[in-house]
């Protein structure tokens, strides 16, 4: 084997349209080996399309790049054996048992002794004793574990996980992420798309994509800092009413309710101060200056790109 490249994914200018709808526009990304790279963005923003282009399931209309050192346009036959792709929708055979599914994957990748490989994977997954259960009968959390188990069975160098934790309970999500971190520690590169902010914060680096365009990337701290968003948290009565009034004011870019408080944010320090001034003195409300959270930043990015989109 050749020396493993230090860069797992390096693509530039990826573009993909379906009909007259451009789903991914001029997207570039750079993922280093052993990283957990979070891929965030609203529904329909092009995350799945990008992942599919990386593993050769879709052909980009424009752009070029490499995945594990192989050209994504011409060498997808070499990429496929070394990439584990976990689809958004469970895509193992529901009418096959856990064991049969894993043996199928092991045989397809040409692993030696597929029966033993499958047995070991079942033990690793904690599914011993249930190997004859049909995959379609498993609960959401177990399906996801099985799918991940099938992905890592052929020991890939890169994992592409498309919203792996959608609809999975918090405990299973935490276990899942612990496993991902364990795999990354062993040198596996993981690209994971998600909607959950807590998951984004568990990534080494993140990229935010909306309407096919990459809007921000870097570590969580870098992304928050680059948004340059100043945030206040306000609590008190009739917050819904207050939110409407604040939104109408100049200098406020985002108002979002969080339980019994509101997050109020703006990019311009002076304008924000001026805008909230009329309510600062109101004793019914408590104002605290807080750092922007990742979610504040994303909602702000999303609303801005939506404006551009329209």
């Amino acid at each position: 084997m050749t020396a493993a490249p230090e860069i797992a994914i390096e693509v530039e200018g990826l573009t993909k349209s379906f009909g007259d709808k451009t789903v991914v526009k001029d997207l570039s990304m750079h993922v280093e080996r052993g990283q957990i790279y979070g891929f965030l963005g609203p529904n329909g923003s092009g995350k799945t399309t990008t992942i599919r282009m990386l593993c050769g399931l879709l052909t980009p209309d424009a752009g070029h790049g490499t995945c594990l050192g192989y050209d994504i346009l011409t060498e997808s036959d070499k990429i496929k054996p070394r990439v584990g792709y976990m689809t958004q929708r469970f895509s193992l055979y529901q009418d096959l048992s856990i064991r049969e599914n894993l043996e199928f994957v092991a045989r397809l990748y040409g692993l030696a002794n597929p029966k033993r490989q499958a047995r070991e994977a079942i033990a690793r997954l904690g599914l011993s004793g249930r190997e004859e259960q049909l995959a379609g009968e498993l609960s959401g959390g177990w399906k996801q574990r099985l799918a991940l188990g099938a992905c890592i069975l052929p020991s890939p160098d890169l994992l592409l996980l498309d919203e792996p934790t959608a609809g999975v309970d918090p405990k299973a999500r935490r276990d899942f992420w612990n496993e991902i971190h364990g795999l990354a520690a062993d040198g596996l590169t993981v690209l994971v798309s998600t909607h959950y902010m807590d998951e984004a914060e568990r990534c080494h680096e993140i990229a935010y994509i909306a309407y096919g365009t990459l809007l921000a990337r870097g570590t969580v701290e870098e992304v928050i800092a680059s948004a340059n968003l100043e945030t206040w948290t306000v609590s008190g009565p009739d917050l819904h009413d207050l939110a409407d009034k604040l939104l109408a004011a100049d200098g406020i870019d985002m108002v979002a309710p969080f339980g019994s408080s509101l997050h109020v944010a703006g990019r311009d320090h002076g304008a924000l101060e001026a805008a909230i001034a009329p309510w600062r003195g109101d004793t019914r409300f408590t104002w605290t200056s807080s750092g922007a959270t990742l979610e504040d930043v994303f909602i702000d990015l999303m609303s801005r790109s939506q404006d551009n989109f329209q």
Partner: protein
Amino acid sequence: MTGDPVPVPQTARRHIRLPGLARLWAMFIKEFLQLRRDRVTFATMIFIPLMQLLLFGFAINTQPKNLPTAVLSQENTDVSRAIVAALKNTSYFSVTRIAGTEQEVDHWLRAGTVQFVVEIPAGFERALRRGETPSLLIAADATDPVASGTALGSLSGVVSHALAGLHGIPKAQTSAPFEIRQHRRYNPASVTRLNIVPGILGTILTMTMLIFTALSVTREIERGTMENLLSMPIRPLEVMLGKIAPYILVGFLQAALIFIAGYLIFDVPVEGSLLLLSGLSMLFITTNLSIGYTFSTLAQNQLQAIQMSFMFFLPNILLSGFMFPFAGMPVWAQWVGEALPLTHYLRIVRGIMLKGSGLTDIAHPAMMLTALTLVAMTIAVTRFRRTLD
């Protein structure tokens, strides 16, 4: 889009009369819209009745004409020439071959190249002039009794008429001055089931094999497993062969079941080699599986795949010689029939089971089946979408 709130229509909540009718109308509109989107269903609705009408109306003829006939003339006289000329003139027979030897004639009959052989024995003319009532020999391939019946019945009249114009032939008073000796080969008693059972075998295999593989790719697409499969290192040829192979076994078991039932219940013999029959049945099974698989790569969903299979199945039944005599169809229909696997399989099965044909007799249909298989597989492998584009 604007930021203005969507105005709520004031009439939205007003109740209308006959709500049941409105619901029915809503359903009616919805069904029509869905039907319009589903182009293959729409095509099926137009294509199937049209195809049935055209095939039954133009292609199918239960009193077949122009049946391929060989003449083996042991003498060259004005009488023999008159008989050949008369045969050529009738619409029932079509003299396609002039034979030199008995062996040639036997081979043609076994291979199904001709359906009749008219043999004019040596000394026929002399015996005729002497009033000795000589025999004209006719051998018929009676594997399909329907196809040969009418033509055989017309033969005596055709020959009498031809001879009537010749000098020195005694005029027929009460009976013809010659006799016709018929030899129905392969199915002397004209038992229909001897012809039907091999036909049913081919028909059942066609239908079941087509459906098995027609669903195989579309099922993976519909269940979402195709995305996973495509992301794994497997090639289209491997997918195809892996999906076809198990069904060859299934089809073979099915064929064996029909053979055994045909033998035990209907007394249908196997005159030729059982091994050859098994081998070529496997080939035929593979042909249909490949065609079904090709439909699977062309169809968008399982329903379309079934519809395509059915549209392919229909001409197989009507134009293969299973329901109606092949030789009786017009030339264009025969050309269509030549492109259908069942046509060739029927020749093979009838040949081996009833005529005892060997590989040399049925090499042509066997080669045609191979060619059809390869064409279908090539289309399937090139049409198989390796990406989700």
